[in-house]
């Protein structure tokens, strides 16, 4: 193999209480897609942030094209042809695509007045259009980022990196938020970039993707490199074991469901989205105690609004919602929570956690005002703390302490905190929206097992997911949502990937084949 474009030697990075990277060696060959795998908190993002100049390594050297370099800030990285698409996108929502492209690297026209020169958005728009067309990344330069879908935002991020002259592209969990179709598109874009001589570091938790797209695979665990291998020499199960350090059961084990009375009844529900458009157009379904009711569908077909309406976060336009026999259609979120509802929200930063609060306080967000956590309006820090210690151990949350701010945990560990909080309460209905997004295989296995356990305890589960494997593996009954309607409801045995895929694309079935509810 020729000289690596990027070589890391003995990189270590320490955070208070955590050794995030421990003497890591890594190589990226030219024209290679090198996948980086590892559990949540294994140190993947940290390692890449060191390469990109956002963090400074405590020890170790970075070589680019064989020469040792010092990377102090992102400018250094960009100047040396390293571009990064971050796990949480780095675009300014209130600006246009063009403005985001220019930011920090502006093209101007007319008088040269330094920072006060006249911006030239037209020329940049042309340039990025051309760049996008070349790689099959269609984007609208005039669009505001806040109006883009996640997939579009990601294309903008990739073009942004290319626009800044990236030769090495780092993609941090690019597929976590994409639909299967969008992920396919991303792979063909990656291949076209490789064909042009660029090199890519690809971080993901989806082992299937790694085997399809990567040339080499490096696995991190607890900040150390466990090994490097190639897709032809390994299997999903082996990779999972390397990541987690034990055998992982990729298939969910569950017995038949024993459905009881209805815990959630939705009748002809109608909801508007933020833009006042009808997002849910008359949806009806029932979830029973002791069953998992899965809602499949491509993201953006009303699932988010459905969950927000059920949990009281969005007003209901029409129809009725009954939980445990009680009408909750227009109740406030706290009143709904108090009827015995747990909610694992889609966006863990916006709705799941208070990022600047420590973990122990995040773990009592719905119960802080009740005994034992409060006595006569006074918070009981000891109880709050003990609760946290117990849950962190039970749910294997990797954190230096219970007083660590939620914002400094890795994405996967943040998700575990939410699941721990929701499942630890006395509940009758669990509403889980994308509960395993961004999680490693070990954590997914763990959370899936917890959800099935809850079902077996007689809790009704409403599972919303765009991950077909998750829906098929967990659900007892499956509904498919498309454009704000439920196109079909079927028992899990009658569902196949193909059938669900067609429904998710909006192809309606002939009336006689729709299974009765």
């Amino acid at each position, binding site marked *: 193999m020729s000289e690596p474009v990027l070589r890391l030697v003995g990189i270590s990075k320490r955070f208070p209480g955590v050794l995030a990277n421990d003497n890591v060696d890594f190589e990226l060959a030219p024209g290679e897609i090198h996948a980086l795998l590892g559990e949540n908190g294994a140190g993947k993002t940290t390692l890449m942030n060191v390469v990109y100049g956002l963090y400074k390594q405590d020890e170790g050297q970075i070589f680019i094209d064989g020469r040792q370099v010092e990377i102090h800030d992102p400018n250094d990285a960009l100047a040396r042809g390293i571009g990064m698409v971050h796990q949480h996108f780095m675009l300014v929502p*209130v600006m246009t695509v063009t403005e985001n492209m220019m930011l920090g690297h502006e093209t101007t026209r007319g008088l040269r007045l330094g920072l006060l020169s006249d911006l030239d958005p037209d020329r940049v728009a042309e340039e990025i259009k051309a760049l996008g067309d070349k790689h099959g990344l269609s984007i609208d330069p005039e669009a505001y980022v806040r109006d883009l879908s996640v997939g579009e935002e990601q294309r903008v991020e990739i073009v942004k990196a290319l626009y800044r002259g990236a030769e090495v592209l780092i993609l941090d969990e690019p597929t976590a938020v994409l639909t299967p179709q969008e992920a396919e598109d991303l792979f063909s874009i990656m291949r076209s970039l490789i064909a042009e001589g660029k090199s890519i570091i690809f971080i993901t938790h989806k082992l299937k993707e790694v085997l399809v797209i990567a040339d080499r695979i490096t696995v991190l665990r607890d900040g150390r490199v466990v090994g490097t291998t190639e897709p032809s020499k390994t299997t999903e199960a082996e990779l999972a074991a390397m990541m987690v350090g034990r055998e992982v059961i990729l298939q969910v084990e569950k017995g038949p469901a024993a459905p009881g009375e209805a815990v959630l009844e939705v009748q002809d529900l109608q909801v508007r989205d933020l833009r006042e458009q009808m997002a849910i157009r008359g949806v009806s379904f029932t979830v029973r105690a002791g069953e998992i009711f899965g809602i499949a569908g491509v993201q953006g077909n009303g699932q988010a609004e459905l969950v927000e309406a059920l949990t009281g976060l969005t007003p209901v336009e029409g129809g009725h919602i009954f939980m445990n026999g009680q009408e909750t259609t227009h109740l406030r979120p706290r009143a709904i929570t108090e009827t015995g509802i747990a909610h694992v929200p889609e966006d863990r930063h916006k709705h799941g956690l208070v990022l600047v609060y420590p973990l122990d306080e995040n773990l009592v967000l719905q119960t802080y005002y009740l005994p034992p956590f409060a006595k006569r309006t006074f918070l009981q820090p000891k109880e709050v703390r003990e609760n946290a210690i117990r849950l962190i151990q039970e749910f294997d949350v990797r954190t230096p302490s219970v007083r660590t701010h939620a914002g400094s945990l890795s994405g996967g560990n943040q998700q575990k905190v939410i699941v721990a909080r929701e499942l630890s309460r006395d509940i009758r209905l669990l509403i889980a929206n994308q509960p395993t997004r961004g999680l490693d295989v070990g954590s997914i296995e763990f959370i899936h097992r917890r959800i099935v356990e809850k079902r077996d305890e007689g809790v009704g589960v409403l599972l919303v997911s765009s991950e077909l494997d998750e829906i098929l593996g967990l659900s007892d009954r499956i509904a498919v949502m498309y454009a704000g309607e439920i196109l079909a409801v079927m028992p899990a045995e009658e569902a196949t990937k193909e059938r669900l895929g067609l429904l998710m694309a909006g192809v309606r079935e002939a009336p006689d084949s729709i299974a009765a509810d």
Partner: protein
Amino acid sequence: MDSVFFSGLFFLALVKATPIAFGAMAGLMSERSGVINIAIEGMMLTGAMMAFLGSVIFNDLTGGTLPKIYSLLAGLIVAMISAALVALLHAVFSIHYKVDQIISGTVINLLSVGVTNFVANAYIDPRGLAGVGVFPVINIPILSEIPLIGRIFFSHQPLVYLMLIMVAVLQYALFKTPWGLRTRAVGEHPRAADTVGINVNRRRYINVTLGGALAGIGGAFLVLESVGRFQKLMTTGRGFIALAALIFGKWTSVGALGSALLFGFAEALGVRLQLGDVNELQALALLAGIGIIVLAGAWAVLKLIRRGADQRRNRTIGILASAGLASIAAALLFDWPSVEIPIQFLGLMPYIATVLVLAGFVGRAIPPAAIGKPYEKA
């Protein structure tokens, strides 16, 4: 009411709006980059005192040999520098020490009141320092000859023109230059700005400090173009009204000027009322009418931008606009009985206008997303 009265009123409104607009621009530079600035009042007060001291001391040092315009300019520059230093203090508190920005602002306001009062008591009053005077009126050739318009816009003292120029420059700079792009990015999503190599904290330091210089001009205006000498607490809350104008103007300098003009108009009317040459009730009806129409207009524009399709709101806007027109018509057509309103109450008018405007609009204005949050690199 005749045209002389109207042009006089609008002329005065522009004058009264000037310090508010300078203050609002100071807030704009700071808040657009993500640093809350409630210390505008303190910066203006410091600027006012230093403008006075600067011009007087410069005049003394040169022994009155130079034309007084040099002393006035010296005062202006001293005001800008000292207010910028006060702003720098706010920046160091908020950015380096990550002190809560509201608290830092409050501390600076209190500090400014204390220091300026002390200097006034210990130095200015005992010596009976007299001011150097004020900037002369500059009539713009030709333009100032235009009837009505010329009187309102083109025969002012220099800082009024400077204010109008700065509003235009800032509006352009904020949306059309690399400086503006970076400033907005830093205020909206500092991490994104960091990942493209922008130094977030440096940008904030520079913006807050330069903004302070603008607030200094606003304070200097009170001395160098209005009263001619320093009085204790002479800003009388204009820094806070500037903040309201900034918010009401949706964090743009043109918007801020618009709302500063509204406040300026209210203040001008208050002044005229206190002079007693206007019928109070008539003036109130006029002000209410104009206020309501501005409100309805702003609302309609907002709605157009958001393309909302709510019929009820359309009706509300219509009703508001007609009520405003009716009020103006009534003001002009009726013969109003004259009533005595206590003078203190009239002086209150601008502040009542502030409260109404804030009550109506603050909920709708969206501040920069990262405002008030110190940037933590990692």
